């Protein structure tokens, strides 16, 4: 046990784990298959789990070792920092020897130290002595928080045409779902309706982009309406809905009994969008829309030509006219647009945020060079043992310059 403990708190393990994580991330950033619009990973990479390098067993093992090593070092450090913060300087300080004519107390004051208390102890940025400790506690919270967040994370994508509403927990409503091991099996039970969608809204000062108005209904709660764009989503009951980039054309068809269906077609070329849909009696029908100009041309698509094709027939469709939808009479009501959306649930984020906050607080404290000095003797006969978080050599050299004489000897680490 004590050997394991010694290993965990050894600087060598800490540096090896940190170096390995840095190297792994640095290399993975350059894997070509991880880049935007890239092909799938080659087979050898998939065999080594490198197709998803940041959830690979090797990466998780490295993070686990880093976590344990950080925890052990931080534990080890707690008493030592507490001792320093209460003025016990013997832990790795330097000796500044007295020198006739040179006033050590005013030298220390010029170096940012306060006046010595009754026991001769003075501090420089006392709180900052805790900087490293706070940073590492933050790192532990962060790693644990990310672990919890990943466990509970639930996210996925869906599409909606203008006027269409969708229950996210309905079968096949959500695709590209990513869910942590502890997340609910089904997507959230929200109904989302798209009231308005503008794929090219030009907001002042920004390039044209998508924007939507949604109606969101949670079971047992009144509906809420929210406007979203790609700058910010809307949160309802712990679920945040976001505007995504994908968009396209949709055919709104009316089925017998007045049922309305939106058929989302996807671009195969800039001017052709195609989709295959099952009719109410289960026959596959392919719908295509050919546009005069590209679908994502902000000036508009120009004239649209709609056609359908099934195993038995091909037809050209016109808005308002009836057509055969795979054995069912249907009417093309309108041609509209669909927009892409995503949802995300992240209950573990408070742990991640506290981790972040502590890491940044610790790093901020670290930028203040802290120190503790134990001054003995009075006037020109004063000597001091000084501990500094950094800059011991500079302080010793400065004292040497000021006083012309320093006996610098590193006190032995007591722990």
């Amino acid at each position, binding site marked *: 046990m004590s050997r394991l403990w010694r290993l965990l708190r050894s600087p060598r393990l800490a540096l090896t784990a940190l170096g390995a994580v*840095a190297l*792994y991330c640095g290399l*993975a950033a350059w894997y070509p298959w991880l880049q935007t619009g890239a092909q799938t990973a080659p087979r050898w990479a998939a065999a080594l789990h490198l197709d998803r390098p940041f959830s690979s067993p090797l990466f998780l093992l490295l993070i686990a070792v880093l976590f344990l090593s950080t925890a052990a070092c931080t534990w080890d450090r707690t008493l030592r920092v507490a001792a320093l913060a209460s003025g016990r300087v013997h832990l790795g300080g330097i000796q500044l020897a007295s020198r006739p004519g040179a006033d050590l107390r005013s030298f220390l004051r010029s170096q940012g130290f306060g006046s010595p208390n009754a026991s001769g102890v003075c501090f420089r940025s006392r709180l900052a002595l805790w900087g490293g400790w706070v940073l590492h506690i933050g790192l532990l919270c962060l790693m644990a928080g990310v672990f919890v967040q990943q466990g509970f994370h639930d996210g996925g994508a869906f599409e909606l045409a203008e006027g269409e509403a969708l229950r996210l927990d309905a079968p096949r409503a959500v695709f590209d779902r990513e869910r942590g091991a502890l997340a609910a099996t089904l997507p959230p039970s929200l109904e989302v309706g798209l009231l308005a969608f503008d794929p090219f809204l030009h907001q002042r000062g920004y390039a044209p982009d998508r924007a939507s108005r949604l109606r969101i209904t949670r079971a047992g709660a009144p509906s809420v309406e929210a406007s979203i764009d790609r700058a910010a989503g809307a949160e309802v009951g712990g679920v945040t809905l976001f505007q995504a980039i994908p968009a396209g054309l949709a055919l709104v068809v009316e089925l017998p009994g007045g049922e309305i269906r939106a058929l989302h077609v996807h671009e195969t070329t800039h001017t052709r969008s195609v989709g295959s849909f099952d009719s109410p009696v289960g026959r596959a029908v392919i719908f295509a829309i050919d546009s005069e100009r590209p679908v994502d041309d902000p000036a508009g698509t120009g004239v649209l030509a709609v056609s359908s094709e099934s195993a038995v027939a091909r037809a050209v469709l016109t808005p308002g006219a009836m057509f055969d939808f795979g054995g069912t009479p249907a009417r093309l009501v309108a041609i509209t647009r669909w927009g892409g959306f*995503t949802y995300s649930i992240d209950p573990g984020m408070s742990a991640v945020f506290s981790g972040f906050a502590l890491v940044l607080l610790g790093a901020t404290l670290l930028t203040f060079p802290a120190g503790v000095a134990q001054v003995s003797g009075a006037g020109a006969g004063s000597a001091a043992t000084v501990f500094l978080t950094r800059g011991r050599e500079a302080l010793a050299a*400065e004292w040497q310059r000021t006083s012309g004489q320093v006996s610098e000897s590193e006190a032995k680490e007591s722990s």
Partner: protein
Amino acid sequence: MQTFAFWAAATCYAVATILYFAEAAFDRRKAGTWGRIVAALGLLPHFAALALRWAEVGHGPFSSRYEVLSANAFLLVLVYFVSTLFAPGLRPLGAGVLPAAFLLMGWAVDTMGVKNEVPIIFKSYWLWLHIGFAKLYGAATVIAAVCAVVYLVKARRPGRLARFPIPEKLDLYAHQFLLVSFLFLGVMIVAGSLWAHQSWGRYWAWDPIETTALANWVALGVILHFRILHGWSRSRMAWLTLVALGWMVVTIYVVVLVTPTIHNFYMVGEAG
């Protein structure tokens, strides 16, 4: 007017570089003083050039190579001056800072005509923290590296560069700036991930530049640990500080130019 202001600033930085070099090489105190005056004067037209571009395109300096590099140069010189208020010993380091600023201006100039509208995701306060701290991180790392280079020169030839701080102080300054870089890079990463969540609903996507920045942050942690845990200092630490500079250059300037990432817009050289 914008072009004139930009060139006035670049000229001031070039002249200041020569004056700082004269201070370093010939131990001329006056040349250093004039170098600082000219460099500080350069900040005024530089600020004007940035402000005029901002007013023209309606957004801050984030969306073309010209805007980004010019703002990086401005912040580098500004951070240097602010640091000298706290540590006057840093003043002669202008001999490293001003040429770096001048080089950035030189790289910026060929894309001066590029003007873009920014994407809607820039409608966020996180943007200011993310981009602002990226620039500050770059500036802090350059100054740390300048301290390291001067340290290495002084360590080899102790009689040289008498107007610069003593080697122990340079070692301390380099350490201090590296810690500041670590903090600034941390804020940049955190703000970036919160911004990504605000816009896209995900904190982290392992995009090449996100991942490089994280690896860079951990690498800075490794470098700082060499000092804290293994007592490395002096020349070995100075070389490691130059490694940190290399990481910074790769993270901020190289990755966006050589791989497709969601960050490509900030170094674009053509109107999009």
